[in-house]
């Protein structure tokens, strides 16, 4: 290993090739880490208590080419408990226009207890929490989020959530 990281001239062509390969791998790794860090930081700018954490991503829906999906985890980086209602989560373009979207605090499918047309007048908070309609985060806690939108409806640049704003990942 010491040979590989040495600054001395390579003793052979094989060593030179090895060093070059290692440099490329290290460079690629550094680049990848930088991308992940960029994603993890939400594109570098955020205001408010929430931050991206982990590998947030935007992808084209596998069977709906015109739909985009943002998925990742949000972390409460503040020192107080935070409640976010899904109705307050919006995608906003760089020009400040709202991009119609469909957010939910989930990363896979789930469903409500109540059938269509049978729910109570006021759905209990516990059900809203379970089904990803609200997020309740103590300091340091994370919550998954998925937001989908039609690409034709606009290019979102940030995610607003009333108490703050996040840059789009990626």
């Amino acid at each position, binding site marked *: 290993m010491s040979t590989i990281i040495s600054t001395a001239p390579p003793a052979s062509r094989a060593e030179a090739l090895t060093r070059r390969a290692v440099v490329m791998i290290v460079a690629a790794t550094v680049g990848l880490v930088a991308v992940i860090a960029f994603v993890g930081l939400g594109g570098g700018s955020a205001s408010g208590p929430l931050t991206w954490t982990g590998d947030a991503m935007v992808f084209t829906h596998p069977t*709906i080419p015109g739909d985009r999906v943002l998925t990742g985890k949000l972390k409460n980086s503040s020192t107080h408990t935070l409640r976010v209602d899904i109705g307050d989560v919006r995608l906003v373009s760089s020009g400040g226009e709202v991009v119609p979207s*469909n957010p939910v605090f*989930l990363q*896979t499918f789930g469903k409500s*207890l*109540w059938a*269509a047309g049978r729910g109570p007048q006021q759905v209990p908070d*516990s059900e809203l929490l379970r*089904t990803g309609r609200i997020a309740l985060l103590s300091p340091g806690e994370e919550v998954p989020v998925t937001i989908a939108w039609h690409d034709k409806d606009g290019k979102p640049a940030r995610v607003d959530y009333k108490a703050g704003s996040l840059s789009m990942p990626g």
Partner: protein
Amino acid sequence: MRPTLVALLLLALTAPVAVAHPERHAYFPNGAVGSVPTYRSTADQVLVVCKKNSAKRIRRSFKGHRRLMRKRLRQLKRCHFRNIQAAVNRAHNGAIIRIMPGVYRERPSRREHQPDPRCKDDYEQIGNAILASGMAGTGGGAPVANYEYQRKCPNAQNLIAIIGDGPDADRVCDHKCNLQIQGMGRRRRDVLISGRRTKLNVIRADRADGIYLKNFTVEYSDFNNIYVLETNGFRLEDIKSRYSREYGFLSFTSDHGLYNRLEAFGSGDSGVYPGSGPEGHCARYGIEIRHVNSHHNTIGYSGTAGNGVWAHDNRFHHNATGMTTDSFASGHPGMPQDCAKWEHNRIYSNNADYFNAKRDAYCKNTPIPERDPKVVCPTFQVPVGTGLGIFGGNGDIVRNNWIYDNWRDGVKLLYVPAAFRGQPEKGIDTSFDNTFSGNKMGVRPSGLRDPNGNDFWWDEEGRGNCFAANSGPGGAKPSSNVLTGLPGCPGSTVFSPGIPTKTASQASCATWDPYSNPDPPGCDWFTRPKEPK
């Protein structure tokens, strides 16, 4: 411990049971005792129910069967009841109730109010508010009727109520136990029990151990046509269920059950629903489902916590989705779902287009009482064109079935995190050790090719899942969405976290609402796929 986690743990402890619908707290009967009831031709108490025109109907139905006709007409002479509920009210343990041919609308039951002011204090709360601190609050829940409500006001929610437990704390049947209620027509259509959607349930068997229902047609409930709850020993046989707003046949926290020779169609949710099934953990299968024909429902078969169910030799076809089992609901006994065994079923042509724009508009704009009850309005969302779905299940066996002509996916395996049930401390606990073997994919029993859009869809989450000896037309390898190939059996012991683009591609479907969000962006479930060539 974090306040939110504390709140969710409290929820897990206090949240009432639900079946992907609100229900009271419910508990499993003692699975160590009990059995499936067997048919009896005699009993100490035999009660006969009839209508004015029963004799005429008997003569018409049994034309050409003179001996049986004479026997029925003799039995008819012992009729003392015009309504089934009246006979149930008179029945002792072990009674046989014979229902002569006719249409039973149960008018006295219909006149009972819902909610019933006499039982205004007999409610429990589902869910609760959450305080700003993150702790669970004491209020903010939704009320549901408890067992006392059913015992004291049996016909408020139910056209026919068989309520077995007395006012004690044991949750075990005391009276109305081992009842056999059977239609006496030559065919199941000769006896029709019609709810007209004025009641949640047409027939409710609640802690009614040993209940045996046989040989009739039942229709038009607002919730369940037949509902078996906290019952040890039940048998549903030779019954046709049609046009329930939600479920045809539903059992919940019940054990030692048999669904046999049933037909179910026109349900807004599922034709048959063995939910919160026996906790045998694969050592025993406490509910058997056989010779069921479930079609033209939103789902042919579903079961949240559908544990310990052996479904075999059934047909699930022409629904939006054929079969599902899942781990979605909070506080549901038996979570996470495990140990369903599905064998020798035909699961085909599940492409019913109940989520198209025209149907969406009809269901959204027509108040429930004004709807044509024969039009299926989905009450839950499903991926149209899917044969079989396991949404958060463990130890399930899908073996030697015929799965074909489902235009999206033959089989869909998707995980559900425990947090979705209010149990975040359990992390990820589903999609473990499911086995798919020996299934014929995309080919009819005749050998004719009839492809699924894709044979196996898997989010690649879980551990121990395996696929072996499944075959397509001519023995070809089944298709799948797993680029590296489906794992053989036994499955890997290494946990796979799943593919985020697959799991997240399903998340938006959770926000479906037929009134406000019938086609959420990022969800492909509600557009019927084109028929694969």
